[in-house]
């Protein structure tokens, strides 16, 4: 028996090797990402098992919840929408070498500004009101990105700490707004509904999927185009690759960094605006379950590539929408989703770890 097992191992390795060899090279590039996701789910399964839940039941509830029917798919894309924005936000700043870990706060202030505009100018034509509210969201998010940018350029304050601190400030300031000056009557900390003229249409009733997803997809294309085909994109990438070389090459790196963080913040703010105008139709305290952090994970899983972001965002949207179904059906705490997310981040960021594990298994997945 033991002998048979021992013979099986090399044969299994050989089969795996043959399997990997047949994968086209384009697809082979995303193998580390796929393995990272599988590894994350494996570790997550261990956590579930040890804490007395059935991983199989939990995961199957999650997957059926996220993709099992039209409603599930709609909710998955609903959840994916804000994540696309925050992922692009992280990505854009990252391309210039900056860590914007404050997308959560930028999303909140953007959402609140959009809500204010949505409430205020009732009676405007939708074609004017919606863009105005979206713009307000992008502008405020951009402002929230400008503060850490200017603090970094002028005073050298590290953006990882300041963007994080500003997220807390955003959380409490918007919390103040919906508990005091703009609180709607009643118990819930929220504003009154926005005017119908400011609503982004729902596109797949009865799910909450809204036209915000179109804006997200347009933003993916715009981001790709900006980074690859424009001078600004070239400058941003040059600064990210080697600031000293970029500067001696005549690029104004201060201007480039400020622009990158402002655009990054504006993207997250626009995402928040889309959530308010399309999904919630008012600002509710704590409406974001952590879309800012999802964005970071999605940007990394998407290989820091706008198109990759689009695919990875659907996956993380599925985690959120399927996760809610899973919690309802199996009583597994929803926070397993955050655990999975963190594990994906750690595994994706460690291609060397995955190579190491594959090597241990005797598999070579790329020539490098």
């Amino acid at each position, binding site marked *: 028996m033991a002998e048979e097992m021992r013979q099986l191992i090399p044969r299994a390795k050989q089969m795996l090797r043959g399997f990997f060899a047949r994968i086209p090279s384009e697809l082979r590039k995303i193998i580390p990402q796929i393995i990272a996701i599988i590894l994350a789910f494996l570790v997550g399964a261990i956590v579930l098992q040890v*804490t007395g839940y059935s991983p199989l039941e939990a995961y199957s509830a999650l997957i059926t919840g996220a993709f099992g029917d039209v409603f599930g798919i709609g909710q998955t894309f609903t959840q994916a929408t804000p994540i696309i924005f925050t992922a692009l936000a992280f990505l854009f700043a990252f391309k210039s070498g900056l860590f914007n870990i404050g997308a959560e706060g930028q999303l909140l202030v953007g959402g609140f500004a959009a809500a204010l505009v949505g409430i205020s100018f009732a009676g405007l034509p939708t074609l004017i009101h919606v863009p105005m509210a979206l713009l307000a969201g992008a502008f405020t998010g951009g402002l929230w990105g400008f503060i850490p940018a200017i603090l970094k350029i002028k005073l050298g304050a590290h953006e990882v700490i300041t963007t994080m601190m500003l997220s807390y*400030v955003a959380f409490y*300031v918007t919390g103040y707004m919906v508990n005091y000056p703009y609180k709607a009557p009643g118990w819930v900390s929220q504003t009154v509904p926005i005017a119908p003229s400011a609503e982004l249409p729902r596109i797949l009733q009865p799910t909450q999927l809204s036209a915000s997803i179109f804006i997200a997809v347009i933003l993916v294309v715009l981001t790709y185009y900006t980074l690859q085909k424009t001078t600004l994109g070239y400058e941003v990438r040059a600064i990210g690759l080697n600031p000293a070389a970029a500067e001696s090459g005549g690029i104004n790196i201060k201007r480039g960094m400020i622009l990158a963080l402002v655009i990054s913040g504006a993207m997250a703010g626009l995402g928040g605006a889309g959530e308010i105008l399309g999904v919630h139709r008012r600002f509710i305290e704590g409406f974001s379950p952590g879309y800012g952090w999802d964005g970071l994970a999605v940007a990394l899983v998407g290989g820091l590539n706008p198109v990759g972001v689009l695919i990875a965002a659907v996956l993380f949207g599925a985690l959120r929408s399927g996760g809610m179904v899973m919690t309802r059906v199996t009583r597994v705490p929803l926070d397993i989703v955050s655990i999975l997310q963190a594990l994906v981040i750690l595994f994706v960021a460690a291609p060397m770890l995955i190579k190491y594990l594959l090597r241990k298994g005797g598999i070579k997945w790329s020539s490098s």
Partner: protein
Amino acid sequence: MVEFLDIINVGLFAAAIRMATPIASAALGGIFSERAGIINIGLEGMMLTGAFAGVAASFFSGNPWLGVLAAILVGGLLGLLHALLTVKFVVDQVVSGTGINIFALGFTAYMSQVIWGSRGASESVNGLEVVPIPVLSDIPVIGNIIGSHTPLVYLIIIVTVLSYIVLFKTPIGLRIRAVGEHPAAADTAGIDVFRTKYLCVMVSGMLAGFGGVFLSLGHLHIFTWGMTGGRGFIALAAMIFGQWMPFGAFGASILFGFADALQMRLQALGLLPPQIILTIPYVLTIAVLAGVVRKARPPSNYKPYVKE
């Protein structure tokens, strides 16, 4: 105005010392890691996990000191993970730290529901009691401010002094700083660069865990969701403000601890909405970073070290 002045009393300063302790502990952790050339953004998550582990261990054993031990242990483990990822597998240090932070927030909330059935807060457990220092606590004013705390407060003062001695007065400290400043040269001189980094980041995690358990067992005797509230990041700011020196970081921590204490008392006073008061520590952190950082120069070379 009379009401406002009323909160500035001995109790406020005692609270400032109390609230400075977790920040100081994590800031010292930050120093150990950064002196060895590894940025530790994961301090926040290590603190939070420490806070949780302490309460869980005290809950199951009834002994808060086992809780302290568990917190240090768990912090050290997360430190080891951060070291493994950043040193061995050359993961970006900020990404690894952020991953650890997200993991900590999710894991502690998950376990909190598994153990206590509540995401928001744990059950109340045996915490650490205040131990007044004889003689010192009898001195008026000063005794009230520094003489009557849980033993962890006194411990962190000792740890601060020890950190200074280890880092700046011993050969070990010289090696650590050499590894941080110039790993290649340190390697040539026969220092085990990787082992030094591993050890320092583990110590960093242990100190962060210690700071975290102070928040849960030294103060409220419960664990609440995300209870560190960004203090790991504030600790990083304290470390920078203190120019990566133990005493400097300790002093900066007292400033942040004071802001924290003031914030709590202002809330109790009810003059301003709590949300506005709650922003004080974060705004102060940003202001401090903006005000002093220009002069602050990181002591280390944070590039991953690859052996030739």
